[in-house]
C-alpha cells in the first residue's frame, strides 16, 4: 500500500477528532492532535492496526512556549502498516507540560514515556511508574533536553 493510501486510511479512521493528517515531501506522515484528544486518537490508531510505539520524542520549542511530543507508531502484525511509520504529534505548554499517558494503549510506550519525562520533563498522567530512569536520582536542575540547558561548546573563547 502506498503511503498516501495510509494517509487516507488515517483520515477516515480518525474522523471527527479535530486532527490534522499531513504528509511531507519526504514521505513522512504526521497526525497532529490536541492533547485532550490524544488518548482517543491513540485508541483509534491502535484499532486500525498500529500495534507498537517506536519512539516517544519530546521537542522543546521555547519560541512557541511549547513542548512538542511525538509518538512514532508502526505495526508488526498488520502487513499494510509494516512499511510505514506514522508520527502522532501533540504539543503541551512549556510551563505546565501535562499529557495523558498512552502506556495503557500501547505497553511499548512505557519506558519511552518515562525517558521523556526524565529528559524533557513532560509529565504523563496515569503512567504506572513515572520516575527517573536515565538520570541519577539526585539530579537537580531543568530537564537536560530543554533548550535552557546549554552545554559548553568548543570555541575560541571556551
Amino acid at each position, binding site marked *: 500500500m502506498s503511503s498516501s493510501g495510509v494517509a487516507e486510511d488515517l483520515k477516515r479512521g480518525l474522523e471527527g477528532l479535530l486532527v490534522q493528517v499531513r504528509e*511531507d*515531501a*519526504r514521505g*513522512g506522515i504526521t497526525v497532529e492532535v490536541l492533547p485532550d484528544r490524544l488518548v482517543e486518537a491513540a485508541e483509534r490508531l491502535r484499532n486500525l492496526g498500529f*500495534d*507498537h*510505539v*517506536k*519512539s516517544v*520524542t519530546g*521537542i*522543546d520549542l521555547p519560541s512557541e512556549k511549547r513542548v512538542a511530543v*511525538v509518538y*512514532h507508531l508502526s505495526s*508488526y*502484525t498488520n502487513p499494510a502498516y*509494516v*512499511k510505514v*511509520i506514522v*508520527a502522532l504529534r501533540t504539543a503541551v505548554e512549556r510551563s505546565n507540560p501535562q499529557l495523558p499517558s498512552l502506556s495503557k494503549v*500501547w*505497553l*511499548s*510506550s*512505557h*519506558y*519511552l514515556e518515562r*525517558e521523556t519525562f526524565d*529528559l524533557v520533563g513532560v509529565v504523563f498522567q496515569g503512567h504506572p511508574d513515572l520516575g*527517573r*530512569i*536515565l*538520570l*541519577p536520582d539526585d539530579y537537580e536542575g531543568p530537564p*537536560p*533536553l530543554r533548550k535552557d*540547558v546549554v*552545554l559548553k*561548546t568548543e570555541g575560541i573563547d571556551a
Partner: protein
Amino acid sequence: MTLEVVEKHLELLIGPQHPGSGHMRLVAKLDGDIIVGFDPDVGFVHRAVEKIAETKGYVQIIPLVERPPLVDCVNVNLGYVLALEKLLGVEPPPQASYLRVLAAELNRVASHLYGIAIHAIMIGSSTMFMWPLADREVLLELLQDLSGARVTYSYVIPGGVRRGLPEGFKEKALKAFRYLRRRLRDYDDLFLSNPVTVNRLRGVGVIEMRDAVNLGIVGPNLRASGVPYDVRRAEPYCVYSDLDFEVMTRREGDAYSRLLVRIGEIEQSMKIVEQCLDKNPSGPILHESFLRGLSPKARAYMEQTGRVRFPALFSALKPPQGEVSVRVEAGRGELFFYVVSDGSPTPYRLRMVTPSFRNLAAFRHVMVGNRLADIPAIYGSLDYFPPEADR
C-alpha cells in the same frame, strides 16, 4: 526473645558491580528461589548523546552516535547517515551502497558473536565465551582492512563510504567465512547441543508472540517469538531489496530460540556479504555533489588509493528545514533515528531509539516467575547492551 518478620520477599540488588549484571542494576524480589518482582535500574551509562548532538555539526555526530553501541557501530552509523541523507536529499552511488551493506553485515556477525559470548559466560560456559570472541577478531580484522579502525569505524559518511574495497579483500573474506562456518559447527558440538545448555535455556524466559508485539521488543528477540519483522525486509534500505536472504524466525520465544536465531542470522549475514562481494559494481564511492568540492589533488589521491578525502563541504553541512525518521536493522534489532533540522549546521533535535532500550521493556515481563539462576540466562539471551540503551 521476640522475632519479628518484616518482609516476606528477599530484595536482591544485582549490580552494577556484579559479574552477571553488566552496566546496570537489576532489582529482583525473590520468594525463595522464584522471582516475584523485577525492575531493571538503568542509566548507569547515560552520557547524553542526544543533548551533545545538538552542539555538534552533522558530520561530527557520526563518531558520537557510534560510541554507545560500540560492538555494532556500522549499523548505527549507517542509520544516522541515512537519516542525514534523507534530509539532504542525497542518494549514494551504487558501489557505496553495496559497501555499506557489506560492512553492516560483517559488523552484525561480530555483534552477534559478542552477544553469544556474553550469553555463554552468563550461564557459565567459559569456553563458549572465549571461542566467539576469538572468532570475532576475524571479522574485526576484515573490517579493519576495510576501514582502518578496530571497532569504531565511522565508515559510512554522507553520500558514500570512506574507503573502497581493498585489494585481496574478497579472497580474505571468503577464507574467513569458510573458517567461521567450520567454527559454527564446533559451537554446535560444544554448546548448542550440550545437554546442560539445552536444559538451562529451553523453556526459560518465554515471550509469547502477542506479548512480544505489545512490549514492542525488536530484533532477534522479536523474531524468536514468531514475528517475521526485519527492517531489511519490511522497508529495505541500501541494496537489501536486491539481495537474497532469509528472515530467521522461531516460534518458541524462549532463551534457547533467541540464541538459535542469532546463530542463524550469522549464517544469513555471511550469505549477504558473499552476494555483495559477487555483485559489487565498480564506480565512485562518494556522491558527486560532494566530489565537486574537492581539489584536483585530493581527487587524484582518491582515484589512486580509493580513500576519501573529506570535502570542506562536510564541515558546514546545512540540511534544509524539516524532520525525518529512519529505521535500520542493527545487530540487536531495529534502530530508529528521528532528526529535526531547523536549517542550522547543528540538528535541532536528534532522537535515537536504540534496540537495547526497546528490549528493556522485556525484562519486567519475562523475568517474573523464573528462578534466580535464570536471571543471567535470560539477561544474556536478550543480548542487552546497557551503553547502547542508555546512550
